[in-house]
């Protein structure tokens, strides 16, 4: 089984988010970058499926050389080889087209992405790839079972779950619960250095959207503390002042 895992290079979840250039660019100063946590779940699932010679795992990233440390981490976790499309990601359409054009030439059985990226919170790339390849997709998977030629996927719906099945190939966006995150061991870290990381030049693709400005949430006022002996007062405040109950 040939598996492709799409990974995004994102700020560590503990990062404080600030902007520069008059709030038009993300301030990367002092920010640690990691594999998008949902993509790491996808990667862990792929490695689990390929274990024991049952398949190969390729990771692909669209990014400049600053993504290489994150890609090496993915190789340390257990991917067999990596591809980096050498372009700064512009929008989901651009990224998905780059990945789809690589996937078209390489006949993958399974393409995994995270359910969304934690930076721009797009949940678009996976489903656009599927559309470009004209294959099925499931966007928010909680559980994935794979047989030789088919999958059974539990997907999240409001207040519950839905089980869908499909033949391979398919694109699946993974959420928590699909796999336990794999921690790279020393052997993995050593071998990651010598595993192939191919750098490809991007194909020409237009962009359909762009971010023009950022803002951070308005700070809230000082917290109003209610005496633990007077919880009724909280009820009145929520009713009379906040008007939420």
């Amino acid at each position, binding site marked *: 089984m040939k598996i492709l895992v799409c990974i995004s290079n994102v700020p560590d979840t503990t990062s404080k988010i600030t902007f520069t250039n008059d709030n038009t660019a993300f301030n990367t100063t002092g920010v640690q970058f990691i594999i998008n946590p949902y993509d790491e779940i996808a990667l862990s699932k792929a490695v689990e499926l390929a274990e024991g010679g049952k398949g190969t795992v390729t990771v692909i990233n669209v990014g400049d050389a600053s993504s290489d440390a994150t890609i090496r981490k993915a190789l340390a976790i257990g991917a067999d080889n990596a591809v980096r499309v050498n372009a700064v990601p512009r929008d989901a*359409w651009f990224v998905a087209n780059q990945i789809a054009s690589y996937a078209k030439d390489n006949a993958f059985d399974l393409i995994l992405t995270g359910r969304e990226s934690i930076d721009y919170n*797009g949940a678009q790339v996976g489903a656009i790839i599927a559309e470009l390849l004209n294959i099925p997709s499931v966007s928010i998977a909680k559980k994935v079972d794979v047989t030789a030629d088919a999958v059974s996927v539990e997907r999240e719906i409001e207040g519950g779950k839905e089980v869908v099945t499909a033949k391979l190939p398919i694109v699946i966006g993974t959420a928590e619960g699909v796999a336990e995150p794999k921690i790279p061991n020393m052997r993995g870290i050593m071998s990651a250095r010598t595993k192939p990381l191919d750098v490809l030049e991007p194909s020409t693709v237009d962009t359909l959207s762009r971010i023009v400005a950022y803002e951070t949430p308005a700070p809230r006022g000082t917290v109003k503390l209610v005496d633990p002996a007077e919880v009724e007062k909280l009820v009145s405040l929520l009713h009379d002042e906040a008007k939420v109950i």
Partner: protein
Amino acid sequence: MSILVYVENTDGKFKKSAFEVVSYAKAIADNTNSDLVAISIGNVAQDELATLGNYGASKVLTVNTDQLSSFVNQAYASIISEAVKSTGANLLVLSNSFSGKGLAPRIAAKLHAALADGALSLPTIEGEKLTVKKTAFSNKAFATVELTAAIKVIALSPNAYETKETGGTVAVEPFTANVAATDFSTIVREIVRATDKVSLPEAEIVVSAGRGLKGPENWGMIEELADVLGAATACSKPVSDAGWRPHSEHVGQTGIVVSPNLYIAIGISGAIQHLAGVSSSKTIVVINKDPEAPFFKVADYGIVGDAFDIVPKLTQALKAYKGN
């Protein structure tokens, strides 16, 4: 501008998110002197379709075959794309629900359209130019995105826009679209839905608890409080990681991002990743025995005290209030 809005149903009933997207699209239609047409897929009764008029849709296109009774994202995407083309719409609005997330990018790709997913407020439209505010960095920030393609798609975050009844009637018109057999390549086998529980992403009130609860056996009082408020229950990451609660309840940067009217956090210290997931809540209440808990810094109201003492008292006080 010509606007099409996709209204999602659950077992033939429109959800709140459907009325939210119609209200949202209606506001855009009014601002731009446009007509608003809705599209509904699946088996929805006439009287249910009629409710859309009340939120401002003048016409609803309906597509209903046995094959379409459950959600198949490829087939639904094909139908909605066809409807965009046949109505000449240059803006499509739908909900950024779990199904909407699987649908919107496929539609956008078919139409070579620009998609803003997770939109939070009305767009600014000047001529051909459309910009809209959306969530970024899991609500640690917001981004204003400009959609530069000719056809634009907005997937609206649940709970971000209030429904508004305008009165009015809707004309129901059957719509047919060609759907390829390959568009039915996923098959729905089973749907499990907890009917007695409020769904977390759509909930107006959320009661959330953390490690301060000490163990899963203590969630009874959380559920009781949620019951009184008609709220959804949620939890912090350590709680779902420990298996005390399901992952679907995990609120935060790597879980579900919520924007309820009221978020009550009990025994959650307020790690930056958790705060990201709740920052667009309208009102935040924090109950924690540690006065130094970072959560108090972003709360509107707080009680410093033991959850095991406060929560049952609060439930009682709310019962008394609701009784009046």
